[in-house]
């Protein structure tokens, strides 16, 4: 009986410490030092949030760089992947279709090796990035859709190269391009 009472008291005390004080303390500290990150890294264009830098969003128009395929069509409620196995015939068909579509829309020859990130759906369905190669292969299409001059196309190519985030600290992870940030900069390109 005494154990039971102790049990209740220990549980309440630890709940207050780890379930109330701890999360509130973290919330208070990060609000001071990382307000942008803590609030979801929201990208603001003309005083309106257009998305989060970290959450991928759909771009259907060929005037914009296209993100990766998503099993949830970039609807974050809830996040998730396709969960297809790598021996799935359904996955094979999707991969073939995506490869064909990527080549057709970008007027690439069928021999082009399509970057795998454009063939496969991500784990979260919200991947904000594509590989640098996937971005480069889309430059000509975007320039065409926007009727860019040669000089503008060169500026666009430069913008893509500037958008490439190298492996973090030189060795961690893969090089990548944030699609939302790139498309936001694209709209500002003169």
């Amino acid at each position, binding site marked *: 009986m005494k154990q039971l*009472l*102790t049990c*209740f*008291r*220990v*549980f309440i*005390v*630890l709940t207050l*410490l*780890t*379930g*109330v004080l*701890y*999360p509130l303390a*973290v*919330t208070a500290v990060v609000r001071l*030092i990382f307000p942008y*990150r*803590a*609030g*979801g890294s*929201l990208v603001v264009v003309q005083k309106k949030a*257009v*998305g989060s830098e*970290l959450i*991928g*969003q*759909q771009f259907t*128009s060929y005037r914009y760089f296209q993100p*990766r395929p998503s099993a949830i069509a970039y*609807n*974050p*409620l809830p*996040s*998730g*992947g*396709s*969960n*297809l*196995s*790598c*021996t*799935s015939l359904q996955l*094979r068909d999707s*991969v073939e279709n995506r490869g064909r579509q990527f080549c057709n829309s970008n007027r690439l020859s069928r021999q082009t090796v399509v970057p*795998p990130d454009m*063939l496969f*759906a*991500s*784990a*979260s369905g*919200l991947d*904000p*990035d*594509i590989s640098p190669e996937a971005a480069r292969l889309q430059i000509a299409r975007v320039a065409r859709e926007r009727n860019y001059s040669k000089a503008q196309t060169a500026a666009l190519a430069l913008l893509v190269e500037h958008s490439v985030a190298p*492996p*973090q600290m030189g060795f*961690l*992870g*893969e090089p990548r391009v944030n699609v939302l940030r790139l498309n936001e900069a694209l709209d500002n390109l003169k």
Partner: protein
Amino acid sequence: MHPMDVVQVIVYIAALTVLAPLLGAYMADVLSQKRCFLSPLLRPVENALYRLSGVDPEEEMTWKQYCVALLIFSGLGMAVVFCLQLTQKILPFNPQHLPAVSWHLALNTAISFMTNTNWQAYAGETTLSYLTQFLGLTVQNFVSAATGIAVFAALCRGIGRRSSETIGNFWADCVRSTVYILLPLSLVFAVILVGQGVVQTLRPYVTVTTIEGQQQTIPLGPAASQIAIKQLGTNGGGFFNANSAHPFENPTPLSNFLEMLAILLVAASMTYTFGKMVGSKRQGWILFVSMLVLFIGGLTVSLYAEHADNRLLGVAGSLEGKETRFGITNSVIWSTATTAASNGSINAMHESLSPLAALVAMFNMMVGEVIFGGVGSGLYGMIAYVILAVFIAGLMVGRTPEYLGKKIESFEIKMSVIAVLASSIVVLFSGALACITPAGLATLSTSGTHGLTEILYAFASAANNNGSAFAGLNANTPFYDLLTGAAMLIGRFSVSVPMLAVAGHLAQKKFTPPSAGTFPTDGALFVLLLLGTIIIIGALNFFPVLSLGPVIEHLFFIAGKGF
């Protein structure tokens, strides 16, 4: 594989090896009630907690009292999480007005978090209110890890003490593990994670109009504080459905590296803590090396499998269910680490892994989560294997087996056999049940060999308190909620209770000085014997069913055939 991939693997393993003795020494001081460098700051907090909860930390417990305390404390935690979910609709901090959770899902989730499994039959962002997340789940993230450390500490004392009836005070062990180990690490880690982009806010979800004019609702929440402890405490339950693949849980390669490190850090450090507490640091290193060998073996197979050509899909290395920023290598280090530790968080969808990588993940879980394993629980699970290995060695040399100066007798061996085999029995029987009942087959996402693997993975994960999943299986049905719930309960307590009994019995024994007939447990020979015991038990239990699952799928995979 790119040379950079190898660099990442090496840096990861090196960081783990360097940090393990540092944290391990600190934890040994904490659990032996010695002064440590945080004492001036935290001693007042600790004492205040004892005063508020009426605990006398000097009051010693027998193993039975310790066990009762563990069980009622776990039961209470489970009841609270269960009730929070059923009533979240009318409670505060529910900005999305999420309804009450169904009783079977609530029960499953309550068991899951109490047992340090953190199996996700729910989708966080569409099921649980902020209050449920931080007052229910975050608390269990801490205390389920703390109870694991407590049982581990009791076992160390059982081995270290001579002719003693008691093995420490459960409440003091829980408080100390939380205050000195889990909380400071989590505080620092949570802030670093937010710096990388993990969200931490109590504001409601934001709905934005995207550049192309569509609506997108972006979920937010107090995620960082929970993710820090979810990794450090080998819990693994995601704040969001996609777990650590979600950019708000794991936004950058650096956050990914640190989270991977956190997954194994505390459990790996426990080997050093063990060595220090039982008075033989070498013995701690022997366990560390044994675990590391198994880890690196599994990692090598997984890396090979994931980078191999996929002839069916016509690519070298599939990115299905993987994130661009992590690539293949970081997804594979994670899938191996998270299943080696009983963490179960994911940064890539395990269902889309190649068959061999999935096999490694399942093997890691099936041997009972002892390759580093859970915080505390990994090491006390490993000691069960050590006792069996010592017993086998004793049979070979024809003497009464001894370990660290304690005679190993029939009671300890019986308890260890229970600890090692109970979860295997649960996996095989519940898997079989699911295969022959319509309710078990109804929610598979695919049929054939991959469907069998889905079922097998679910129960291997639940019964060994891992929590990762082949997420194609819809496990939120009364059948799976209840069956995996039962598996999680048995998996947790069929190891911790027997090992507490072992602790109690070892504590009562006298010290037996090593003699010519003692089998040395601190050399390479013992490492081999221990590895053999683990692999043989794992392989013998599961080889037939694994052959029907991932092994057959692998044969189809290399032939370029699909389903």
